[in-house]
């Protein structure tokens, strides 16, 4: 209690007032609007959950599900026993950890190098990287590049080409540039070389940025499917999102699937969707504080 005594100047509610008296009519209006938005955002997730745990008969007969009339875990059982989905999870986990580490490493060291003063060709390198934000070679040259580098149908095709993300590299560069140059000079006086300065002085100070960019990369890797769609033929190299995409598009298409068993595709799809989004949803809150801080710091300084 003692530490709050000094904060008595803050506009807290006056003694004796009630909670209701503090909230005016406009607050209720704002509250209602926010609640409405919250429902709009949350309902699709809730609906997906309901569909995933409802039997097909309930789903087909109830256009607008509000609560589970009947519960079945069959869809989750099917999902958890699906070899292709687990294979997708393995690939996605590899992308998540190896890909994120790889991208972080290259993006951070490039950002750091470009934030330092006085080296020949810095502007040239910077501009070369910047150009890629606005111009691309196009799909077919990229396809040739991947093929001739021997990356076609290799799991590395989803990792190696994404070494540096220009936007995130700029965030890192701006952040490093915003730190006082005295730090570097002091470290040099103390006998540190460039690598020591980077790892022991600057990198520890960039943790919020690392967490933010790491989260960007992790989410990107978790959700990635496009490169795999173009370059992966081997089913065991397909990431989770591509497996899901194929599952969803095939089940809702009018493709002839002669002789195949008819499945409750919506239930399976929603169970799969939950299976794929829950890990990321659980991960997000723990990094949120870094996320906001890092984003603001990188955006306004530099």
């Amino acid at each position, binding site marked *: 209690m003692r530490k709050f005594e000094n904060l008595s100047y803050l506009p807290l509610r006056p003694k004796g007032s009630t909670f209701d008296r503090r909230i005016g009519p406009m607050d209720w209006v704002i509250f209602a609007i926010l609640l409405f938005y919250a429902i709009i955002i949350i309902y699709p997730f809730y609906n997906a959950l309901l569909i995933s745990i409802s039997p*097909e*008969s309930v789903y*087909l*007969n109830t*256009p607008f599900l509000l609560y589970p009339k009947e519960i079945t875990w069959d869809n989750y059982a099917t999902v958890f026993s699906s070899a*292709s989905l687990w294979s997708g999870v393995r690939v996605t986990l590899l992308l998540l950890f190896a890909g994120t580490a790889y991208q972080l490493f290259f993006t951070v060291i490039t950002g750091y190098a470009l934030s330092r003063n006085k*080296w*020949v*060709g810095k502007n040239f390198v910077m501009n070369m990287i910047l150009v890629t934000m606005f111009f691309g070679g196009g*799909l*077919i*040259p990229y*396809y*040739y*590049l*991947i*093929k*001739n*580098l021997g990356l*076609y149908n290799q799991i590395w095709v989803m990792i190696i080409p994404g070494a540096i993300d220009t936007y995130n590299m700029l965030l890192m560069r701006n952040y490093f540039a915003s730190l006082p140059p005295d730090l570097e000079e002091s470290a040099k006086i103390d006998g540190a070389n460039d690598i020591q300065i980077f790892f022991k002085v600057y990198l520890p100070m960039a943790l919020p940025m690392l967490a933010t960019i790491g989260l960007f990369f992790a989410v990107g890797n978790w959700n990635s499917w496009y490169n795999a*769609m*173009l370059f992966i*033929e*081997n*089913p065991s190299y397909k990431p989770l999102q591509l497996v899901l*995409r*194929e599952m969803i*598009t*095939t089940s*809702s*298409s*009018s*493709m*002839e*699937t*002669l*002789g*195949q*068993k*008819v499945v*409750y595709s*919506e239930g399976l799809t929603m169970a799969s969707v939950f299976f794929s989004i829950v890990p990321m949803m659980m991960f997000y809150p723990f990094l949120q504080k870094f996320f906001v801080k890092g984003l603001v710091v990188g955006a306004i300084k530099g």
Partner: protein
Amino acid sequence: MKKIVLILLTLTLLFGLFAGFTACGPKDDEGTITIRNLYFNDWNGDDAYTAFLEEKFGVKIKTSTYSWADWDQQVASAINGGNVTDVFQADIDSYNFANSYRFWAEDGDIRALPSDLSAWPNLKKLIESVNDIEKLKINGKLYGIPVAKNIKGGEPDFTPFTYVYRRDWAKQYGVYKENDIYTWEEFNTLLQTFYNKKCKSGDFYALVDVEWGFPSVVNFYKDAPHCFAIDGSGKVVSNYGTDPYLSGLTLAKSFVSNKIYGYEQYSSNEGDANKKYYGGRVGVFYENLSLSNYSTLRTKIQEANRNLSQDALDDMTAIMKVKGPDGKFALEGQEDWFSMTFFSSHISDEKMKKILDIMDYLLSEEGTMLAAYGFEDYDYTVDALGNVSLTEAGWEKDSTGRYIDKYNGAKYLRYMCTLGYDMTSYDPMTDQKSYEILANWTEFMKEQQAAGNLRVLNEDPAVKWLNTANKARSAGKLLEDANAAVMQYCYGSITLDKYKAAVNDSTWQKVLKEINEALAN
């Protein structure tokens, strides 16, 4: 020192960049055949039947699949990137014929079939039986195999794009007609009755079209299925601007206004309309009633209504036969093939021969039995009268007594040449009741066609397969834009004048002028 490192780094980067554009050429492993196909799904070639074929033909088969949503892009990027598998499947129709198939052939991306196919009699027979096969030849050569729907031929030239309806509702409200045959007036009365009795109160719809099929009622008025129609003077015109089409469109718009088309077709997603019908909220549903779709529809309705009797299910999934205002049935025309199988130009003569050998075998009687049932005396036995019995060892059943599907490489590889409708009647995985209903409907429509009572909507072959620059470039887009304009007009987003302008704009005029000039020459 720093400068040297920088120069070396720059050179390394440039080397990497240029290395990417250096042509390495595809690896051509003679012993392995790589095949990519839409219908392979999650089959990976790891089964006894594939092993049998590999041993028989002395090859290793490596398979991969296209995904339905990305099929065109996967094919286009692979072929433009010079990286197609030895054998691959592409969706070729008259609208992309010129700017894909012809282009690939002329560019040397795909390999022509041997001119003499007598060494592969089954394949030869299949190719010769395909309609419009001459149109698929480029400079006299065939550069792929049209994937035939039925190797035995006899496929109707009309599609099963038609109405399935709630016969039970029709009976309940006294508007049912015997044998599900309805005149145009009776059809309209039925829709109005469904609307009055069911749709005014609650989440029900009298008529719903599958997303790509809207507005189905125009089919009973229009003269051609897609973009191009021929007017009274023999001139090619925009089908969407003809008087018959506009009459149908006026009716469709009135159906929307009067809530007969009560369902929001404008913004619905693929599969939504089906779910409405499965859920028992639609009276009449326009859909592609192919065997797999119709079988799915019946299965879903059974699932939604547990303990449904067979008769009740039949009443809920009856196929309607509707005569248009001219007193005739009307159905869209169709090819007897879907998509084509191509061969990479990089494969050797020897490899080509092996692939054709495998295809020919799979189309033979022995290969067909392998694809349908598996190994004789293990998966099935044949008695003295030729009757086939499946064995317990070869074919497991689920708790409902239905055979469990299994990976059979022969069946999947057969998709390189045919969709396998010839096997449907005896395939253990076929839903026989659905098959029987559809077969009866097809037979009925064939009889009507023979009697001159069926109008089949076909594009004139001379226009359909005509290859001119603007048509090749714009036909697909014209079709897409015109369908969007139809939807916008029906739902009141644009006026009739704007609609007419949209389906006769400068691009249309340019393409039509070019087609008419080409045909005149």
